[in-house]
């Protein structure tokens, strides 16, 4: 069993214990482990017991051993505690880090060098959140003459100015109403 699977299964048992204040039966564990038979559960339990992660009583039922306050027990036993669930709950995926509103986020592959001094290169992927109201200083994607344009969004004296991060491009003051598509929330550049 790979380490991640072991952690997942222990987490499922812990969650069950937390909710029901008792250990799950073998039938209930088929649901927790998403396996078909109690026989499969028995094999998993045997493997976890062998590694000392679970304990059974004489009749084969699970005992609530090392389930709660895992961190404290870890120190008492003078070993390193396994990465505890509580710690893991405070981390987020790279997806969540880069994307604020998943349902509104789109990718745009950058062509051109208008934002080069903002560190956005040709070939980079920018994450664009549609429908977000831009603030001064945000990088936005707007639609101008049937093309995308990516610039800094600035408000100057009640006027909107789009400014490139490249001195070769002059600031752009839209004459008509500007169609802002979205706000850039992140850039991704993958090397390997």
């Amino acid at each position, binding site marked *: 069993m790979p380490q991640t699977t072991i952690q997942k299964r222990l987490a499922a048992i812990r969650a069950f214990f937390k909710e029901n204040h008792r250990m799950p039966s073998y039938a209930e564990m088929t649901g927790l482990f998403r396996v078909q038979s109690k026989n499969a559960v028995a094999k998993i339990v045997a493997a976890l017991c062998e590694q000392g992660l679970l304990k059974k009583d004489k009749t084969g039922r699970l005992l609530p051993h090392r389930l709660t306050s895992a961190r404290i027990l870890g120190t008492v036993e003078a070993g390193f505690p396994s990465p505890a669930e509580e710690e893991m709950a405070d981390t987020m995926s790279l997806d969540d880090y880069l994307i604020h509103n998943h*349902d*509104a*986020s789109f990718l*745009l592959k950058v062509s051109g060098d208008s934002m080069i001094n903002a560190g956005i290169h040709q070939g980079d992927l920018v994450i664009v959140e549609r429908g977000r109201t831009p603030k001064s200083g945000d990088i936005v994607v707007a639609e101008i003459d049937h093309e995308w344009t990516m610039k800094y969004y600035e408000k100057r004296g009640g006027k909107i100015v789009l400014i490139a991060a490249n001195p070769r491009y002059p600031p752009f003051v839209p004459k008509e109403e500007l169609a802002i598509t979205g706000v850039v929330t992140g850039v991704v550049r*993958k090397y390997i």
Partner: protein
Amino acid sequence: MPWGSLNDWPKAIVHVDGDAFFAACEQAVHPEYRGRPVVTGKERGIVSAASYEAKARGISRGVALHDVPKLCPDTIIVPSDYETYSLFSKRMFAIMRRTTPLVEEYSIDEGFADITGLRGPTHSSYETIAQKMQDAICSELGITVSIGLSISKVLAKIGSKYKKPHGFTSIPADAPKPYLEKTPLDNVWGIGPQTAAYAAKLGIATALDFVTRDAVFITTHFAKPQLELWKELRGESVYPIVPEEKSTYTSISKTRTFTPPSHDRAFVFAQLSKNLENACIKARRHGLVTRRITLFLKTQEFQYATTEGTLSRHSAYPHEMMIAIRPLFDACFRNNTPYRATGVVLTDLILDTTIQRSLFELPIKLERLQRIYAAVDTLAEQFGKHVVTLGSSLLAHTQHTTSRGDLPLRKTHRLKGETKRLHLNLPLLLGTVR
């Protein structure tokens, strides 16, 4: 009239309907398509969806693509990009679910939401709640949807059709009359052309004509489905919102158009064989089996040849079904006739837990098939659909019918790190960046 009798909103149902959905998705990711006539379905030879700019020029769904330039020469014709459309669809439903978990995904571009009882917790009227849903979909996805809000599903659907595109129509319990008056009966969801023609003979032309007849008249002249529609139109909600993903089917059909059309017997059969495999994959995924198979061949002139066969035992294994399909195909297929599509329909599906074995069959044979297809399905899960196929389907997989220009950009251009099977789960904005 029962309208407005007890409560002004006994129920509050929202129907969200994408406006020219596929074409709108294309316009949302391609700035160069905005405001221009766009048509999808290049690989199929007929119009799948037409943008409102194209509709204004007389192009509608189902028009042959070679007629499109005659109607509007500057139309942009693009191949279908179902990956992008599906991502938009999923998001549309996800946004609807922010308001309520009671969301029914009726099809890729339309769905219902039950917002009954949400006025209190949100401190707003049903109109405001539905309008917010519409605003979120439009601003976050860059497409437009039309909304119907009413007290039953059928009325809500009348609402969303009433004004399009980007319409918002609320049909409250106390004032449905003007809307029903302007809705021809065959525009009502669930009323087909046959029923509409029959109703016309009874002097019923509009939804209002229908709804003002009494229950006795309806029951004597119509069947149960129309009685249910009659109740729904009168504001009595009969059809519930079904929030789960559809998992029970009474029939499964798989069909595929290939361009250019072909009169090659082996190739057309391979297409049919592939459709059969696809239908069986779906049946097995839902644990369903059948004894009845219908197959059809469609000629270039859009003529159908349809036959149907019965198996000796329920099955979801193309291996066994092939035996029945071959003679059916041979009976249908005409030499020197170009075909453009084949299709397979599995009907009378039942759960595979109730398979009854036939008397003269060796049980070991079935068990072997079960083992083989368990392995085939596992391989498909790991390495992609059709890694193991029937030999008879092979021609459909190896012979490329769609030219490269008929593939959407998302299929021909991969981002770094993407594989043929795995793409990033965010839609890509296309077109040039300046």
